[in-house]
């Protein structure tokens, strides 16, 4: 993407293009309303192998295996789904030094209506911090490509997972149905 294209592209198009530019071919997700345009774009692009797993930790297992087999992978989940993955992070991804790329749609803040999402949102960053997993909360459209591109390169180079928490400030989030 040129700089002008990046400025004009929606956030999900920037994520798709940045994954592609970094040869991340496998994307496994547990669906999320906010990520729907990204998931649609990934399915529409033959470059990607993308499908739903039944559970977020399963998705992490799949991309861990794929990485060991030479294929870069990312997982997509919503905030509540993050609560299912600390064991897989603590006992597989982090100790084995696997550069899993984790995209979390941030729920539970800035207008959340679901208490369950809000509680997980409060614990998500402390969990990542205590596991030593690098994470970035992306709020600004103009920083998205830089953060994702550089962090994927760092993850691969240092053999470490990284989490991208995409804020409602970036994606618009999910609001009460009217």
């Amino acid at each position, binding site marked *: 993407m040129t700089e002008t294209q990046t400025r004009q592209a929606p956030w999900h198009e920037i994520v798709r293009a940045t994954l592609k530019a970094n040869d991340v071919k496998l994307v496994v997700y547990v669906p999320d309303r906010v990520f729907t345009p990204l998931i649609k774009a990934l399915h529409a692009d033959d470059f990607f192998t993308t499908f739903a797993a039944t559970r977020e930790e399963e998705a992490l*297992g799949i991309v861990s*295996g794929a990485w060991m087999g030479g294929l870069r992978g990312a997982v997509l989940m919503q905030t509540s789904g993050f609560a299912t993955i600390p064991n897989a992070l603590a006992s597989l991804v982090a100790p084995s030094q696997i550069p899993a790329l984790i995209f979390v749609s941030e729920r539970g803040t800035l207008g959340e209506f679901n208490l369950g999402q809000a509680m997980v949102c409060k614990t998500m960053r402390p969990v990542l911090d205590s596991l030593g997993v690098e994470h970035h909360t992306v709020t600004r459209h103009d920083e998205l490509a830089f953060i994702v591109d550089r962090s994927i390169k760092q993850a691969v180079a240092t053999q470490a997972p990284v989490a991208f928490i995409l804020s409602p400030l970036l994606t618009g989030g999910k609001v009460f149905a009217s």
Partner: protein
Amino acid sequence: MTTLQHNAQRAGGAHNAKVMNRFELTKRLTAQLKHEEAVIGGIGNANFDLWSSGQRPQNFYMLGSMGLAIPIALGVAIAQPQRHVVALEGDGSLLMQLGCLATVAMRAPTNLTIVVWDNGIYQITGGQPTASASAADLVAIARGAGIAKSAWAADEEDFERLFAQALKGGPSLIAARIDDKPGVGTTDRDPVQIRARFMQGLGIKR
């Protein structure tokens, strides 16, 4: 209640299957691997017996993440479609992550074989009964999830025959009733070394 009594209560195809030994079957399985097939050993005794059957560079030994042997194997199978991948998993571990059977069926990788060692107990934690001891039929569950090539191994020879068939094209699931003998030996416990050796074994340079 003893394991044998649990086994006597089993439903479905399991009740006719012979109770075998995991280490013995693991040796028979690895003896059939001639093409650098990848093997993912699930946490616990599945892993320990895989380790003791002879360490291969294409073996991955899971030290944690109970239930993820099959998802890891699916990931390897997607990354390397030319290589056959085998997941070895216990009944307790599979029951923890049953959804992965549906994901495997949906993706339908022809290069994936799942082997389930079913002794009806959480052996490593003290032998508490699993649901498969009295009620759940793991082969019926796998078929219901969409893995049509799912079968109980009737005896050792049947296990070898089923595994030889599975290597020709899957996805397949083979379940074996096993006794409550503990695993033979234990794995090393260095996850980075295990991961690095496995990647070298798969021809991946880092």
